[in-house]
């Protein structure tokens, strides 16, 4: 196929139209939508409103609540382990606080636990730092400037979440935010700043103040690398067990959390951790590919913690809503679904259709922006790629017109580098995007200290629910993982000082199995998923002596 500058001839025909309208679009924008217009658009075009997207869960503490189908499949599933076969008298690891999940929330929880003089163990499925935090590009919100306030931040958060967020969680989020920025500064994290130290801040979709703090387009990466370095500097207080996902929690006879069963991915052994409290920070569910969408999420985003916590009795909230990031890559094929940071639009890029026309305000809250892009493609104004996928142009050269030549390479080195690998120079040509599965809006219900309805069980980060209501704004997830990671660490270290749980049991798992047996749920449906299944059916047909337990071989 004839290619020039990374695009086919047919795509160039449309790019020329985008170029032709660029000057006249500069400085002009579509107005932002009213609340009512937004609601109407969502109902018609947002994937959450697609018929059959959710179903009522048949079992467990939130029985009867609607959750998305893919999550229901995990909750209505049998455990990986047979409780009768696990020897709980053998303890492989002992600690005070067990953190399950080694991303931004888990690592901050561990750091705060350690700071409080309590021993903590992080068990994580992949490596410490293999998490969505590492991939967050655009920024972190905090109302720390003169024209801004925690109250204004509060309004933005709760409006973006359609006024359904849990108020005490929103308060915690916005009130802790400036202190979190200060904490990161103290740890030595590098931010984008003016010469005098003032933070360079920008808008995100749905913000009314420029409060997005950033570190080029590696914001989450630099946060994660800094936190990981700090955790590794405390080997006496923080033990780290990698490639060992937790597959079940342990409760004592009174229902107090007292550890977990880990699965060593390499030796395939099940190991026991005894602890006085557990913090679940396992992140989101992108790798479930809700409605078959591609995802921005990391390899391990399979919502394992949700399954463990639910079986132990934690209630769920808002798991009927899913965040689709408006701008996932739609081309080239190798990077389809990967994140194109919202900060690109903050800096001045805008979506335009195949004819080079504007059709939406570029910084609506994510659900509305995504729905507007889907509508434009359904109206027949999308650009078709060689694989038949349809996308919308994101006119990136506008950034260079607004902020000067070279500003894309300087402020978006990751995006620039990724596109140059495919011969696309986004400083000169637009890039093609389409909504992609991005974030688990809901999760396990928590209080502002991250406690749950299960004693000794704390939850923080993407696997919790309530902070963001039905839709999260950009830059509030990096903030969420740090605010609530810290809060969980603090609360758990306080809790363990006054508690001594009894012997660990799997009573709750036995009961869950009994409840499952009363339903028609297929016995070969296994959870947690641990790893997504990317093995081809063809290959599986030839794997004659292999045994699959769920998605794992």
């Amino acid at each position: 196929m004839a290619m020039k500058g990374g695009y086919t001839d047919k795509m160039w025909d449309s790019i020329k139209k985008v170029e032709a309208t660029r000057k006249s679009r500069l400085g002009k924008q579509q107005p932002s939508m009213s609340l009512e217009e937004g609601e109407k658009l969502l109902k018609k075009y947002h994937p959450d409103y697609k018929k059959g997207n959710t179903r009522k869960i048949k079992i467990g503490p939130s029985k009867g609540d609607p959750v998305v189908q893919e999550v229901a499949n995990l909750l209505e599933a049998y455990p990986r382990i047979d409780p009768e076969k696990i020897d709980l008298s053998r303890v492989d690891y002992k600690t005070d606080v067990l953190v399950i999940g080694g991303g931004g929330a888990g690592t901050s929880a561990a750091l705060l636990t350690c700071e409080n003089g309590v021993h903590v163990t992080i068990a994580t499925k992949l490596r410490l730092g293999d998490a969505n935090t590492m991939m967050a590009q655009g920024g972190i919100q905090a109302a720390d400037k003169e024209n801004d306030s925690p109250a204004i931040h509060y309004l933005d958060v709760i409006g973006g979440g359609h006024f359904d967020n849990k108020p005490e969680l929103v308060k915690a989020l916005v009130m802790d935010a400036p202190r979190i920025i200060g904490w990161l500064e103290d740890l030595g994290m590098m931010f984008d700043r003016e010469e005098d130290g003032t933070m360079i801040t920008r808008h995100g979709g749905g913000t009314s103040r420029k409060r997005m703090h950033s570190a080029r387009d590696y914001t989450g990466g630099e946060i994660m690398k800094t936190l990981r370095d700090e955790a590794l500097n405390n080997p006496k207080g923080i033990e780290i067990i990698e490639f060992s996902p937790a597959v079940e929690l342990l409760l004592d006879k009174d229902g107090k959390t007292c550890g977990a069963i880990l699965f060593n991915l390499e030796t395939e052994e099940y190991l026991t951790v005894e602890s006085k409290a557990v913090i679940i920070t396992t992140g989101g569910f992108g790798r479930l590919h809700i409605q078959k969408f591609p995802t921005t999420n990391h390899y391990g985003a399979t919502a394992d913690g949700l399954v463990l916590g639910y079986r132990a009795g934690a209630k769920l909230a808002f798991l009927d809503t899913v965040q689709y990031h408006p701008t996932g890559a739609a081309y080239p094929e190798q990077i389809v679904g990967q994140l194109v940071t919202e900060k690109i639009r903050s800096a001045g890029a805008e979506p335009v259709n195949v004819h080079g026309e504007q059709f939406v305000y570029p910084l609506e809250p994510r659900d509305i922006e995504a729905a507007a892009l889907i509508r434009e493609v359904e109206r027949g104004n999308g650009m078709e790629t060689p694989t038949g996928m349809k996308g919308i142009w994101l006119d990136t050269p506008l950034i260079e017109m607004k902020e000067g030549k070279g500003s894309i390479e300087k402020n978006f080195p990751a995006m620039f580098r990724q596109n140059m690998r495919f011969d696309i120079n986004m400083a000169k040509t637009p890039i093609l995007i389409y909504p992609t599965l991005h974030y688990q809006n809901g999760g396990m219900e928590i209080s502002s200290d991250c406690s749950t309805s299960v004693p000794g069980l704390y939850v923080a980060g993407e696997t919790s629910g309530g902070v963001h209501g039905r839709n999260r704004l950009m830059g509030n997830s990096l903030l969420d993982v740090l605010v609530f990671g810290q809060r969980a660490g603090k609360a758990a270290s306080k809790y363990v000082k006054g508690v001594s749980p009894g012997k660990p049991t799997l009573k709750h798992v036995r009961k869950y199995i009994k409840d499952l047996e009363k339903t028609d749920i297929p016995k070969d449906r296994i959870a947690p998923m641990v790893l997504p299944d990317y093995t081809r059916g063809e290959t599986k047909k030839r794997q004659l002596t292999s045994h699959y337990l769920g998605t794992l071989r």
Partner: protein
Amino acid sequence: MDEEMVRIYIMGKEYKVPGNLTILTAMEYAGYQVKRGAGCREGFCGACATVYRMKDDYKLKADLACQTKVEDGMYLAQLPFVPAQKSIYDINKLKPEVGTFQEIYPENFKCVSCNTCTKACPQDIEVMDYVQAIVRGDIKKAADISFDCIMCGLCALRCPAEISQYNAGILARRLYGKYLAPRAKHTRKRIEELERGMWEDEVNKLMKISKKELKEKYKSRDKEA
């Protein structure tokens, strides 16, 4: 679109895979279930460092499996782990000066300026330049150049002087961020206000009002241009 198949050699063994795949998805196509060697799958985490060479070529190349398209005749192996040393330190007790590196990562000073690290870097970072900046005590420059490092460890594995560049890089960035970068006065001011309880009432009020009132407030909020 017709998929052109290419021949690749995973750890020496031949597989035919569609030519439009990345190294990572090609391995999955071939039947591997990846445990080590996949993380973010978007080029941000450094989990999928891969060494390869092309058929009939002796040169070893390095890149990220998730961001690199397969090519016909690729001989490749993924690195499950990089056992380079990360030193333990208390960032609060360090000084942002060359002596800190002499103590914590003395091997940096054995750099022979061969530039092999730079050639190995999948991020196209001038790795040797930041090692040299560390040697000169220019921490700001080392922090700036190393900023896009994803800590995959390929530089360290190729280095004849056995330097662990990526670990020295994060130390340089933390020293710069903590001690040399100007601080944000507005952040400290807001933190202090919050500690005094200054914003408590305003937020508490918002928590109590009805959804209808909240909606009105949201609609009428002014927006910074």
